[in-house]
């Protein structure tokens, strides 16, 4: 069992910006929306617990540099999770995300986009665990990273399904900056380097929650 002693924090309703603290368990009760995530220290052990009937929508860009993060999510009965991370990685990073669907009627979606700076090295391992004898669970894992020269990114998706009554999907896509996209932007007068920067930034930013209108 878990021998760690967790700091327990209930996520407040007005908390649209969240700075993740090491060794902390965030409890979600009710409906919560997080628009910005920050990581302070280098090593992190974090849990997010979605209690019965709760929902968390978190869509954010995330700058990481020499981070070692283990994020465990526990989804309980009737909960809804939409976690969208647009990760911009510097230096050397390791991210482990474990998403547990422990009860029934859960809708849990994780979307991650990763882009690295020159000479960065990032390993991302995302695991979905759907417990035995659970019913009517929906699970989606959608990871995409930009492949560029001198940037190392490794994405390892894994799904462990022990229930027969679950709808499970996962995607891993490796993206590149397309010549035709650069041409399009240049044909509007944008310089090549600026065009590439825009493509990279927007790839990450597409994970943010955009309010309609």
């Amino acid at each position, binding site marked *: 069992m878990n021998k760690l002693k967790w700091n327990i924090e209930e996520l407040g309703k007005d908390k649209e910006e969240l700075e993740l603290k090491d060794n902390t368990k965030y409890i979600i009760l009710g409906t919560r929306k997080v628009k910005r995530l920050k990581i302070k220290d280098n090593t992190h052990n974090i849990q997010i617990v979605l209690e019965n009937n709760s929902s968390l929508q978190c869509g954010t860009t995330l700058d990481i540099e020499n981070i070692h993060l283990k994020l465990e999510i526990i989804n309980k009965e009737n909960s809804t999770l939409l976690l969208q991370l647009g990760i911009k990685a510097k230096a050397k990073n390791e991210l482990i995300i474990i998403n547990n669907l422990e009860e029934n009627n859960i809708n849990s979606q994780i979307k991650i986009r990763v882009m690295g700076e020159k000479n960065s090295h990032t390993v991302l391992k995302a695991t979905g665990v759907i417990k035995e004898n659970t019913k009517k669970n929906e699970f989606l894992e959608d990871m995409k990273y930009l492949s560029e020269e001198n940037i190392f990114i490794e994405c390892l998706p894994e799904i462990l399904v022990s229930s027969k009554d679950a709808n499970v999907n996962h995607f891993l896509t490796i993206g590149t900056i397309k010549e035709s996209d650069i041409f399009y*932007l*240049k044909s509007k007068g944008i*310089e090549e380097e*600026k065009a590439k920067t*825009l493509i990279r930034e927007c790839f990450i930013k597409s994970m943010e929650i955009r309010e309609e209108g």
Partner: protein
Amino acid sequence: MLEIKNLKIEIENKEVLKGLDLNVKNGEIHVLMGPNGAGKSTICKAIMKYPNYKITEGTILYNEEDITKKSTNEIASMGLYYISQTPVEIEGITNAEALRLAMSSQKKSVDIFTFNKKCTLICEKLKMPKNFLHRPINVGMSGGERKKNELLGMWLLEPSFLLLDEIDSGLDVDAIKIVSENLKEYHEQTNASMLIITHQQSIIDLLKPDYVHILKDGKIEESGNLTLAKKIEKEGFLEKSRVNIVSESGKNE
């Protein structure tokens, strides 16, 4: 304004343009027609320096300046605006993000208030929902919507020369009317020159070009005025060779 002299273009070791001459003066509208595969799109892409289109001979002058060796963004910043036959989809980047960066790159004011006000007016003109501005570039848009979306860029960037590759293809009758009227209004306001590639008569009727050219096998085969377009519509591109066969066989008998 735009002067193309003896332009030869190679794509993947195949010569597609075989010595093209074209001269479009300030404020003129030229229409370019020709069978599929003749090299029409290649002309626009070559002018804009599409990747891997190799200029093996000839020159392209814009306002008397040689642009043969200039890069795509430099050419665009000189006032040329290209709308592709099939505008690309770019996921993740919204029209507003790209256009504001384009405007600042072209040293045009982009203060957000004026930008929004302008966009509202343009969207009305194009009969296009304003939320298109905040959608990713052309993603999930129909063929017609994409062409309108590209015209939004024209109104904002105010180019002096338009390269329009089949801007009317895939449009319904109402959309053709809206697009043509926008182009006409833009032409009247700015006196911009246009090179319009089309297979259809309707846009020609509405825009009344000064010249019509027929491109065949990488070269201009015939140039004329509106009547040439009318003749092509009636008789097709094969007409000339057909006439030759008939008259030759007539002689022989």
